[in-house]
């Protein structure tokens, strides 16, 4: 009997103790932080059977930390002929009117070329740009060429569309030997500018485009090395054949089909485009700085897809010092201003052209800011 009592009492005590422990464990977990006893997680019989590692293993989780980002990516006007590889972030866009005044002192003629650029960030490292150029041509009196009255004409030139695809971002804006920002652009031109039915009395000023559909591919590179930036753009443009007529001036601006001439199935040669710039940002907040840019184009005697060209081949190389400033510069809106002059360094079968230039860019920044920030 005593043994039975002891057995039952033992069972009751064990049950009571077990129940008390479980109650205490869960009640304590919910209601209080009182701890009944000190136990090591590794000790036998611990109620906390968690898969803990040893103290030494836990120490292996010690983390070395990467340096915090030290950003530098001022919003500047940038170069005139060289593109920027960084795309506008999604939700951001900008409007950029340019003005290039191509002056030919020797022949008293000029052409004010004003592309209105609209760039929209598409996300996924893509950007879509359109360039709608406004053109103002002027021809002065030149008795040596039989031009007895001046003429001018205003209109829309060839429209240009571009899709930019950013492949890499600048890996480090302080070190020169790191991966730069690189992008590819796919460009298309539509001959929206007048090039047929030209009036002899306008002396060619009414020609606002060269009449070809074009396709181009470019590689754009930019490397920041604070406070400098280096830009490069190289590309190839294929100009599709087109039928041009009397009075048409070829795209070197020199040779012309006589007004008495007949129509011509024109094939332009392969057009190579190259440009690069060095930029020194003197003040990051104000985007103030100066640039030295080079720019050249070469049209060969053979079209990449359409065989031998019958349009003239030509080439030129220019150098352009430029200045820039950003004002105002708020988070949502900024305007960058740029001005410069392109000087002719070399030309072959191309006019000796001086080009004063100006631009302003109106940035409307979305939640992700502006390009390259």
């Amino acid at each position, binding site marked *: 009997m005593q043994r039975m009592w002891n057995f039952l009492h033992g069972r009751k005590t064990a049950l009571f103790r077990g129940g008390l422990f479980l109650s205490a464990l869960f009640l304590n977990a919910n209601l209080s932080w009182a701890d009944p006893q000190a*136990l090591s997680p590794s000790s036998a019989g611990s109620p906390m059977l968690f898969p803990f590692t040893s103290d030494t293993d836990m120490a292996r989780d010690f983390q070395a*930390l990467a340096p915090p980002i030290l950003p530098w990516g001022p919003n500047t006007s940038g170069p005139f002929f060289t593109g920027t590889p960084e795309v506008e972030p999604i939700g951001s866009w900008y409007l950029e009117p340019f003005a290039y005044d191509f002056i030919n002192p020797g022949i008293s003629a000029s052409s004010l070329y004003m592309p209105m650029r609209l760039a929209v960030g598409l996300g996924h490292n893509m950007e879509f740009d359109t360039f709608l150029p406004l053109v103002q041509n002027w021809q002065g009196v030149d008795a040596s060429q039989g031009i007895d009255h001046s003429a001018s004409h205003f209109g829309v030139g060839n429209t240009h569309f571009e899709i930019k695809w950013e492949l890499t971002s600048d890996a480090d804006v302080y070190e020169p030997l790191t991966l730069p920002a690189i992008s590819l652009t796919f460009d298309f031109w539509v001959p929206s500018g007048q090039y047929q039915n030209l009036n002899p009395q306008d002396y060619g000023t009414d020609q606002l485009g060269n009449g070809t559909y074009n396709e181009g591919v470019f590689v754009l590179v930019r490397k920041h090395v604070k406070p400098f930036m280096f830009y490069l753009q190289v590309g190839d443009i294929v100009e599709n054949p087109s039928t041009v007529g009397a009075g048409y001036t070829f795209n070197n601006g020199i040779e012309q089909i006589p007004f008495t001439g007949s129509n011509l199935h024109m094939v332009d040669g392969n057009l190579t485009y190259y440009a690069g710039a060095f930029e*020194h940002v003197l003040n990051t907040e104000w985007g103030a700085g100066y640039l030295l840019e080079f720019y050249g184009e070469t049209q060969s005697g053979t079209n990449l897809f359409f065989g031998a060209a019958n349009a003239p081949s030509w080439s030129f190389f220019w150098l352009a010092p430029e200045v820039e400033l950003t004002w105002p510069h708020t988070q949502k809106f900024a305007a960058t201003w740029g001005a410069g002059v392109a000087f002719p360094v070399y030309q072959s079968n191309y006019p000796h052209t001086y080009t004063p230039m100006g631009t302003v860019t109106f940035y409307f920044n979305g939640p992700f800011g502006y390009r390259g920030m």
Partner: protein
Amino acid sequence: MMKKVRESIPLLVVWGVLGVFLSGCAEMTEPDVRAYIHEKHAYAEIRHGQLDQAQKDLKSALRDNPHEPSILNNMAYIAFRKGQTMKAVGYLEQARVLKTDDNDEPYILNEARILIANHQYRRALSLLALIEPRQKWPTGYRKIMAEALLHNGQSAHALAVLLGRHRVGLDKPQP
């Protein structure tokens, strides 16, 4: 006189542009930039196990920017790997002093890891308790906190932490 002035204008322009350009070159070696570059190199060296070289770079970084806690953290990392435990703790204490916001969490966790490895459980717990009242716990916090609590005999509290129950929530008055 005027002729001499006119002749010297191009020279002045050239020297002016050269001066501006050189000032830009000087900007490339600003202390903050130097510190950043040294720290970046050191981080890469740590990842490749080149601790001595990393230590040299971190010392250079610290000279240029003594207020950057991540440099101190990585100095602590190297000291710890070399077995200099208390030196490592000292670096992390300095790092925490420089960080007054919630970004001090990596430093707290790292210091606690060293202390636990060095069997200083009570000190580790008091350090980790700084994070407990915060609304969001960093990754890995629950595990290390639970371990510190268990080493201090607070098993119920450890269970609550593992279940993700914030003490701050329990203290809130009930409606």
